[in-house]
C-alpha cells in the first residue's frame, strides 16, 4: 500500500511514452532525483476526457510512439527508483486487461496506487476489491462540486491519499491557486488520510500556498509534461522548485494537530 512521507510531499505526473517510450524509466528516475516522493505515471488512453490540452497532446504522441499497457509495465519495471509509483489511467484500459490482472501487473512493477479519473466511487466496486486483495491503494478524486454524502462514500474507500481537485475543469498548468482549493481542503481535513492537491499547480509558490493551506502533498502534471520536450534535466529542476515550495509551505502551516480540531 502507498504511504506518503511525513514531510510535505511532491507527486509529479507524466505520461508514459512521451516524449519517447525509452525515456519513460529515465523520467521516473529523474523525478526521484529531483525530490519527488511519489511518481504518478500516466498510462495513455485514446479518449482522455479529464485532461487538458497539454496532457492530451502528450497522450496522443505517446500512443503514436507505441505505448501500450504491456510496454507500460515493461518500461516501469526498468526504472531504478525507491519511491512508490502510482498509475493514472482511464477505466477502459483496466477493464479490457481484466481488473484483477491489471492490479496484479501494477503490483509486480512497483506501482502501489491507482487513480482513475473517469471512475467515480459509485462504479468502483470491482477495482476496489482487486486493490484491497492485492494491497494496492485506490486513490479517489474529490472535486469542488463533491457533495457531503459523496465525500463520505469516497472517504470510505480511499487509500494512499485523497486527490483534492483544486478547481473545476481539466488538468493543465495555471497561474494561480484557485480559492476553491482551500474550501475543499477544509471539507476533507477531518478525514485521516493524506491530502494531495492537484489540477493547475505549476510553481513553487503554488506548492507553498497549497501546503500552507493544509495539504500534505501537491500533484503537478502539465507543467512537467510541458518541460519534457526540453529534456530530463529540466524536469528535475522543476521538481526541486516545487518540492522546495511545498517544504516552505509546510514550515509556515499551522500544525496539523491544531488544524484537525
Amino acid at each position: 500500500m502507498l504511504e506518503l512521507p511525513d514531510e510535505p510531499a511532491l507527486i509529479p505526473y507524466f505520461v508514459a511514452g512521451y516524449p519517447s517510450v525509452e525515456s519513460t524509466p529515465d523520467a521516473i528516475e529523474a523525478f526521484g532525483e529531483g525530490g519527488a516522493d511519489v511518481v504518478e505515471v500516466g498510462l495513455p488512453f485514446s479518449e482522455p476526457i479529464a485532461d487538458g490540452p497539454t496532457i492530451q497532446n502528450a497522450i496522443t504522441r505517446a500512443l503514436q510512439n507505441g505505448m501500450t499497457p504491456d510496454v507500460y509495465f515493461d518500461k516501469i519495471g526498468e526504472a531504478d527508483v525507491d519511491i512508490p509509483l502510482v498509475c493514472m489511467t482511464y477505466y477502459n484500459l483496466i477493464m479490457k486487461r481484466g481488473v484483477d490482472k491489471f492490479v496484479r501487473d501494477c503490483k509486480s512493477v512497483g506501482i502501489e496506487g491507482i487513480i482513475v479519473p473517469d471512475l467515480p466511487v459509485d462504479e468502483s466496486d470491482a477495482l476496489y476489491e482487486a486493490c484491497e486483495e492485492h494491497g494496492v491503494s485506490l486513490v479517489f478524486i474529490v472535486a469542488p462540486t463533491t457533495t457531503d454524502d459523496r465525500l463520505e462514500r469516497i472517504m470510505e474507500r480511499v487509500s494512499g491519499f485523497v486527490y483534492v481537485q483544486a478547481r473545476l475543469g481539466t488538468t493543465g498548468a495555471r497561474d494561480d491557486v484557485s480559492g476553491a482549493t482551500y474550501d475543499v481542503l477544509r471539507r476533507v481535513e477531518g478525514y485521516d488520510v493524506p491530502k494531495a492537491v492537484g489540477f493547475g499547480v505549476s510553481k513553487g509558490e503554488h506548492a507553498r500556498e497549497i501546503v500552507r493551506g493544509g495539504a500534505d502533498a501537491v500533484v503537478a502534471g502539465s507543467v512537467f509534461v510541458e518541460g519534457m520536450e526540453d529534456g530530463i534535466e529540466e524536469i528535475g529542476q522543476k521538481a526541486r522548485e516545487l518540492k522546495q515550495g511545498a517544504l516552505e509551505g509546510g514550515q509556515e502551516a499551522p500544525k496539523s494537530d491544531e488544524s484537525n480540531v
Partner: protein
Amino acid sequence: MSKGKFEGYGGQYVPEAIMPAIDELEEAYEEYLNDDGFLNELDAKLRDYGGRPTAFYHAPQLSERVGTKVYLKRDELLHGGAHKLNNALGQVLLAKKMGKERIIAETGAGQHGTATAMASAALNMDCEVYMGAKDMERQRPNVFRMRLMGATVTPVETGSATLKDAINETMRDWATNVEDTHYVIGSVVGPHPFPAMVRDFQSVIGREIREQSMEAEGRLPDSIVACAGGGSNTMGAFYEFIDDEEVELHAVEAGGSSLETDDERAPNSASLNIGDDGVLHGARTKILQNDEGQILESHSLSAGLDYSGVGPELAALVDEGRVKPATADDDEAMNAFQILSEDEGIIPALEPSHAVAHVLREGDSLGDYVVINLCGRGDKDLETAMESIGMDMDVGFGEGA
C-alpha cells in the same frame, strides 16, 4: 450505488466533478418526466415548433419492390430535418427548468448541434457547440446554420479533430462549467441518466408508430427497422414495442467498407455487431476497441453513424436477443439512398438509408408489414452522394439529360 444499468451496461463513468451535476440532472429528469406541466409544455413545443406528429407513409413503389408492405415513419419531416430535435427540445427545456443558463453540445456532422442550436434559440438559451475542426471544414453549411441561430461553434483541434474529440472537449467544458451549464448529449449514450432520458425524449417516435399503425393497418408491424449510430432514433422507435414480442426490432449499423478491423481503425461503425464490452464516454457498452482497450476510429459514409460506441440499453437488448443487430455497408446504403429517392420522391439521409438497405436485402423475411424509421432527410448528404454516384448522374449537367 452504481446506477442506470441495463444488464450490466450503462452506469456513470465520469469525473467526480461532474457526478453531482449528473445526480442533480437525474433528480430533475425523474421529477419532470412525471410532471404534467412539463410534459404538456414539451408536447406543445414538439407539435407547434417541431411539427409532430410526423407522418406515417405507406410507400407503394418501395413496397412493390421489396415484396412486402413497407411504411416509413417520417421523422425527416421534423423541424431541422432529423429526429434529433425531439431530444434537444426535451433537454433544453429541462435545463431551463433546472435554472441552467448555458447549453453545450458536441456535434459530428452538425445534425445534433443544429438541433441543439434550434432548441436553444427557440427557448432563448445561450448555446455553445463543440465540433471537430476537420468536421467543420467538411460541414460548412451546418456550421453556418448553427451560427445563424445564434450558437457559438467552437472548433476542436485535438486528436483526430472529429466527433470523438468534440465529445471529449464538451465533457471538459462541462467538468469546468458544470454549475450553470447543461450538456445536451445527442444520443442514448453517455453516463446515466442520459441513455434513459434521451430514449424517453425520443420514444415519442414509437408511441406515434403504435397509434398510426393501429389506425392505418389495425395491427402492429411485423418488424421495425432503424439505423443505429449512438442509437437514439433506434431506441426512440423501439422502446414502445419492447414488450410486444411479436414485433421484431432490427438495428442496422454502418458496415462501412468492411467489418474487418485492425489495431487502430475500424472501417465501419458496427459496435453492436463486432464491438465488445468496454467503457466509453461515461458508459459501459459495446465499443470498437483494440486488444488493449484503445478506442478504434470508426468509419462510415454517413457522418451520423460514425461513432465507436452505442447506447448501453441497445447493447443489452441485443445481448438479450430482443433486438436483432445487422449491418449495411457504404455501397448498400448509397444504393438504398438512390432507390428510395427514385421510388418515392423521398431523399433519405444516409443514416436511415442503412435501414432501407436492410429492408431491400431482407425483403419479406421481415414479415408482411414493415416500418422503417426514416429519421433524417438527405439534403445534408447531397455533396457526398454527388461524389459517390458521380458522373452517371452528373454527366448531363448543363447539357440535357
